[in-house]
């Protein structure tokens, strides 16, 4: 027994020793050429926040990717535990308020059904609800959803779940792996409804994603976003913060075996702009804001933001 453990410990040490890259204490400098000046200095990269820590912009994407790859399998169970099941009510309300699908016969052939783009919707939570609503409430069999996510693991989870829905392997449901800040495969003015639910918080450059949304939407198309936001009631806010920073990492550790990912989650919620600031960002991208521009859910824990791409009269 003891020899076994000694041997495995030795192997681990030996392995890591073998794989360790040679790192000179001073960077490489050849006196006869200018290689060193061409080297990229890490300090020059623009910084962005990853939870409460600052990381270079180039690094955030991979870090967020690691978080979501890690949580993909237990995503739904964790959401239920963290939000006490309320996230289902929010998502249902979100879809119902958007009322996807046309109950009226279309006037022209290219208007048949809505073209919905669900960004960061890897597990299909919103997409299946939209298709269900369009089919069962509005009797619209044409509306289609493209699920786009940057993370292949989340998409795989969504594909797995789509097996249980009637939309599996039909033209109404599509999965695309893409970065929402740059989607060259989606033509200009081709989307009726662009949704991003609990996703935009993790984007490296939110304004770029909003500008891209503005580009792909048809004139009159709608940008709809549900995201964690700022609680306005100080008493509720106190309870909510305590829950976020004490309970959620603990639940993450116990249920998903991953404390750090859920620590990042609550920190990213804390860093997300307030309702008014985010509304300003939507306006900056060129959208019209209906009414107040946002709807608070459960006292502002989450908020639904909407923007409409204006029609330019010729």
């Amino acid at each position, binding site marked *: 027994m003891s020899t076994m453990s000694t041997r495995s410990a030795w192997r681990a040490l030996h392995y890591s020793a073998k794989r360790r890259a040679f790192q000179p204490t001073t960077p490489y400098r050849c006196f006869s050429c200018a290689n060193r000046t061409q080297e990229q200095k890490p300090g020059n990269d623009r910084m962005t926040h990853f939870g409460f820590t600052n990381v270079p912009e180039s690094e955030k994407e991979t870090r967020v990717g690691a978080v979501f790859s890690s949580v993909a399998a237990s995503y739904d169970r964790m959401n239920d535990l963290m939000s006490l099941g309320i996230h289902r009510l929010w998502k249902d309300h979100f879809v119902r308020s*958007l*009322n*996807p699908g*046309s*109950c*009226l016969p279309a*006037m022209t052939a290219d*208007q048949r059904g*809505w073209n919905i783009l669900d960004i960061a919707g890897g597990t299909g939570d919103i997409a299946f609800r939209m298709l269900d609503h369009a089919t069962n409430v509005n009797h619209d069999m044409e509306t289609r959803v493209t699920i786009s996510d940057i993370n292949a693991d989340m998409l795989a989870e969504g594909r797995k779940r789509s097996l249980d829905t009637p939309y599996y392997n039909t033209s109404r449901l599509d999965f695309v792996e893409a970065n929402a800040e740059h989607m060259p495969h989606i033509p200009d003015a081709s989307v*009726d*409804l662009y949704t991003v639910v609990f996703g935009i918080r993790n984007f490296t450059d939110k304004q770029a994603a909003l500008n891209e949304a503005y580009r792909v939407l*048809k004139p*009159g*198309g*709608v940008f*709809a976003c549900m995201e964690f936001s700022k609680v306005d009631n100080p008493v509720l806010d106190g309870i909510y913060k305590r829950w976020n920073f004490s309970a959620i990492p603990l639940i993450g550790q116990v249920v998903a075996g991953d404390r750090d990912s859920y620590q990042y989650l609550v920190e990213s919620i804390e860093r997300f702009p307030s309702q008014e600031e985010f509304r300003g960002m939507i306006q900056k991208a060129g959208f*019209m804001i*209906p*009414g*107040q521009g946002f*709807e608070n859910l459960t006292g502002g824990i989450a908020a639904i933001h*909407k923007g*409409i791409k*204006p*029609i330019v009269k010729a």
Partner: protein
Amino acid sequence: MSYLARTLPKRVPNPFLAQSIRQTRALSTKTLQSTPTTRTTQHKPRTNQRHRTYHSALHARLPDHSYTNSQTAILTSALAHVPTHGFSATALTLGARDAGFLDVSVQLLPRGEFDLILFWLASRRGLLRGKVEEGGLFRRIAAEKGKDVHELSVEERVRGLLLERLRMNMEVKDVWQDALAQMSLLANIPLSLTELHALASDILTLSGDDAVDATWYTRRLAVSAIYASAEVVMTRDPTPDLVETAAFVERRFEDRKALADKITGIGQCAGFGWNTAIGLGRSWGLKI
């Protein structure tokens, strides 16, 4: 003191500062005396249209509704579909299509169908004001009664405007009950009441009512109550020119007058009783 000197009218000769100040004082007291600000006589409504009433002349009138251009475009086209589809999401979607928007663009109206109802109410209110300011409405009402426009009393004007507003509902009469039901939903009640008050206030202002005492409230309350109940009667009125509704409104105005008379009578009676009691007590030697 220096402030007074600085704001002296130019035409006052100003050889010596002290004298000019004395003159200014005299001027200001004279002005104060010539226009008493408190009213001692009973309130008599003024019927002069040009007269600016209690609200500030320095502020422009608020717009009838606060919808943006795109919202107004959708709502205006949607109103064309209301007689057939009612105040419904279908009418809104069809309106959005007519205005060149997509089906999804009805998201521009966060309150959905209720926005359509509010827009209807606000735009009709604006039309009513337009009709009055154009001048033809009161002439027509006066002609119906065989009077001159200036002879119309405030009450007659109020009644005329109220009926005119009810007649504007003619084309949506069959779907108006649905709208009333929508307006009475708990979440919609505050805005519905605000709109009703705005209508009552507009009707009274346009009729030349300039009461600034407690009757400001009771008048608006009375007009609101009569209008709201007449709307319900209107939805079940089969006559083509709303004759039954007009008769109903007539009766409610009579009721209002009777009620006002009774309240005045009760007040007078109580006053007499109180005075008699005091006089009786004093005659018995009570120190009151």
